[in-house]
């Protein structure tokens, strides 16, 4: 199973050049059953990444472009009166997909945002008093543009918490960019991607991830990290116990990708910044999560 994963990652990096770290984090997020928030400027390959992931795993893919006039019904779906059947027929919205790309999620009104975010947390939606289960697996990849803040509704902390990770894409290095320009990589290749993993395999992998062993010493390390975010006044609010769970789960996925069935401190360190970055509000004279990682003793 591990080789399948490696295989998939190689395939992906053929399309998305020079972004191995991001690909791995995105994969890790999916394996940990989390949702991913990608924060970067347009044209950095956010859509390409999510599309490739969908293709790679053969997932049912939907994309919603968020705008300020988008309504919850546009996401969840509506009941339409069928004159022939003389009854209301529910038309599923784009949320009923296995992988949902929510583009520029901060452009929609809070009401619409919360409709999506509820679906993310509960993995089901309630429409007209009827709960409808979303397909398995259900993964949301949302993107937002960090710069243009005009006319946006920034996600509040509580909703940021729904995303397991937040990662930036960043510019590709010169060589990868050259390859893109030459046409050896890029989004148009996505269509040619072969499916490497089936949704069933993915779900099996997710199952395995949650069984990865975390020793006492490692849990102590996580506790030290959590405590450091809370105690020393570097951040306005420290990490919550839920964030601690998220950190552990993400680290497990990271270890799984590495092919280990136990956690080591490096796994936690690899995912700490993407997992905690959007959950912590930095104080004026505080330190970044990365700096915090350097300060907390990994070995006690």
């Amino acid at each position, binding site marked *: 199973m591990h080789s399948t994963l490696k295989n998939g990652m190689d395939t992906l990096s053929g399309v998305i050049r020079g972004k191995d770290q991001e690909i791995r984090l995105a994969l890790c997020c999916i394996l940990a059953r989390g949702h991913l928030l990608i924060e970067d400027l347009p044209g950095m390959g956010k859509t390409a990444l999510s599309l490739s992931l969908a293709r790679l795993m053969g997932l049912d893919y939907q994309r919603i472009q968020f705008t300020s006039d988008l309504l919850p019904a546009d996401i969840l779906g509506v009941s339409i009166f069928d004159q022939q059947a003389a009854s209301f027929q529910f038309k599923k919205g784009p949320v009923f997909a296995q992988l949902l790309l929510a583009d520029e999620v901060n452009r929609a009104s809070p009401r619409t945002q919360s409709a999506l975010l509820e679906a993310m947390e509960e993995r089901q939606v309630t429409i007209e008093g009827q709960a409808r289960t979303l397909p398995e697996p259900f993964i949301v990849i949302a993107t937002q543009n960090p710069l243009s803040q005009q006319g946006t509704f920034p996600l509040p902390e509580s909703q940021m918490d729904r995303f397991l990770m937040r990662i930036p894409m960043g510019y590709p290095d010169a060589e990868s960019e050259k390859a893109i320009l030459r046409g050896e990589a890029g989004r148009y290749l996505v269509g040619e991607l072969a499916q490497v993993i089936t949704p069933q395999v993915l779900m099996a992998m997710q199952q395995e991830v949650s069984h990865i*062993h975390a*020793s006492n*010493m*490692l849990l102590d390390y996580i506790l030290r990290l959590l405590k450091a975010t809370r105690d*020393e*006044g*570097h951040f306005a609010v420290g990490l919550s116990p839920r964030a601690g769970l998220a950190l552990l789960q993400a680290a497990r996925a990271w270890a799984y990708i590495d092919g*280990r*069935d*136990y*956690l*080591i*401190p*490096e796994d936690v*360190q690899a995912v700490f910044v993407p997992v905690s970055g959007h959950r912590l509000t930095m*104080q*004026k*004279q*505080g330190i970044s999560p990365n700096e915090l*990682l*350097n*300060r*907390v*003793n*990994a*070995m*006690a």
Partner: protein
Amino acid sequence: MTSPAVSRYATLWLLVAQMMVALPVIEVLPVSVMPLLVLTLIWRALIWFGRGVWPSDLLRRLLVTLALVLIVSSFGLQFSLELAINFLVTGYALKMLEMKTRRDALVIAYIGFFVVGAGVLYSQSLLQGLYLLLCIATLVAAIHAMYSPVDESSIKGSLRFSGSILLQTIPLILALFIFVPRLGPLWAVPWPEGDAKTGLSDKMQPGDVARLSQSYELAFRAQFKRAVPPPRERYWRTLILDQYDGNQWWQSDLLQLLSQFPGEIDHESNWQSRSPVSDGWWQIELGSYEYEVLLEPSGRQWLPVLGPAASAAVESTVLRTLRLEADKPVYERRLYKPASETVINNSISMPPWLSALNTALPAGVNLQARSLAYKLFTEVGQDPLSLGRRILEYFHQEPFYYTLSPPLMGESEVDDFLFTYRRGFCEHYASSFVFLMRSVGVPARIVTGYLGGEYLPEEKVVRVLQRDAHAWAEIWVEGQGWIRFDPTAAVAPERIDLGLDEMIEQGGLLQGQIPLAYRFSQSGFLKFFRQGWERLEYRWQKSVVQYQQEKQQSFMKQLFGTSSYYWQQVGVLGALLALFSALFGLFTLYQKPRKNLHQKAWCQLERKLASKGFERQAGEGPKDFARRVQVEDPILGAKAISVVDLYIQSAYSDNQSLDATIFDNLIKMIKQL
């Protein structure tokens, strides 16, 4: 990292502490600075009540500048203790106006402890000690209030906390008090000259001693070993005044004498010089009183002694006027033991210059007095001793009165006193007496000091207040030396026998105001209480405040029986320090979670690698660390990686069955590294 704000509750504590702490040093603050401090306090209180705003940066700067100007204008730029304390107290008060965060509040609390220390400089009495302890408790409570959550803070809780903290420090306080070597001061602040304590001065004008009689300040205490002299023998001789200009008496110094009597003063017999008394002058006899004196700080060098001084105590000299002088001005309470010998005058004749000095009078004034002196002198057959007695008789027979509020006298002071007003305090009588004696060529001089003192029988202590100040005379009789004459005794014998207080009680003072403080101090219960307190205070001073180098040394000797006091002390201090650090170490060790086997192994590995120059950074995980080692040193790194891999498997994996063998392997590999 911003510090959290200070709770209203903690601010209140700090304000109260500030007022309490400033009280002992308030007498040092000049009148001009006081309003500023009161203003700051009111301002801060207004902010506390939500009625005021924080001062702007500019305003704060202005306030500080104003404070600096006020302080410097009242003390000058010369560095003195008062100046320093004023800076401290003003800074302490002004800092309240920018106290917003806990950090500021902590600074204020710590400055508070400093101000408490400054309070000790001004008084070391028992009451002051207790009060300062209360101040410290308040400050600790304020710090506690700063750190306790708002909804949990209570006055009682903070007080209980600070009380328990103070109680815990008691063993440490005692140990440090007893064992810390008393070193001399490393630096000293000059005592302000003009602002000397109330007390005797080396100049005497009519009215000086009378003014002192209003002061209830303690001058000194004397504790007697065996017999205690009766009040009429308690003449505490302090200063000899032999120069007179018609109004003022003062003590001559060597330079003055050299210009007055050029070539006559041989260095060996220097008048008030520091050279010890040559034996030919005086004869010493074992006296009957053995006592030691605990002198309050006077800022002066002279030391009161019962009768003429015979031999020097530690760090002091006997001058040729037979008074005791300390080597340095007395700025702290000083314990000394004057010789218990009595001086008997020898039958040596006086050198001409000395006789000239002690008979000198300004010409042309007090002519009436001069003629009176001649008249009396011829009456008694030109005998100095008889003249002295005759003058006393004169004072006794004529309507002379003893009063605390003598009238102002004119140019011819002695004449005015002797023939017009006939009312005066001891210095008037002494001054006139000496004038009369000198007019007929009998060497005479003024002696100032204290007379009497309150006797506390339980402690055998005589307590002498500034109000016991007295002036009397000494005349030279050929063959007998200097003889004491106290003209006051002729006018108001009850002053001598009973002391000022009793005299007032019996109405012995004519036209003298009875001080209010006196009236209060005399009711039965209060008197009892006051005397009890006095005893306590005396014990405190003698055994605690006076526990200085000498006493410490003798105590250590008692404790260890050897004389190598210094090393004993250092040893004890070291042992105490070791004990405390051991306790502290045990405590922290107990608090620290214990390391498991893997962590111990890892520490061993880290030490191994550290000895090869590779330190793990705090945030570095085991694998990253090994990789970094490999980058810098491929051979060692390769080994390190394999060890770390094994370690990771052993420490982090779930593979319990393999664990023991892997762990043994790991230890072996670490050792081989």
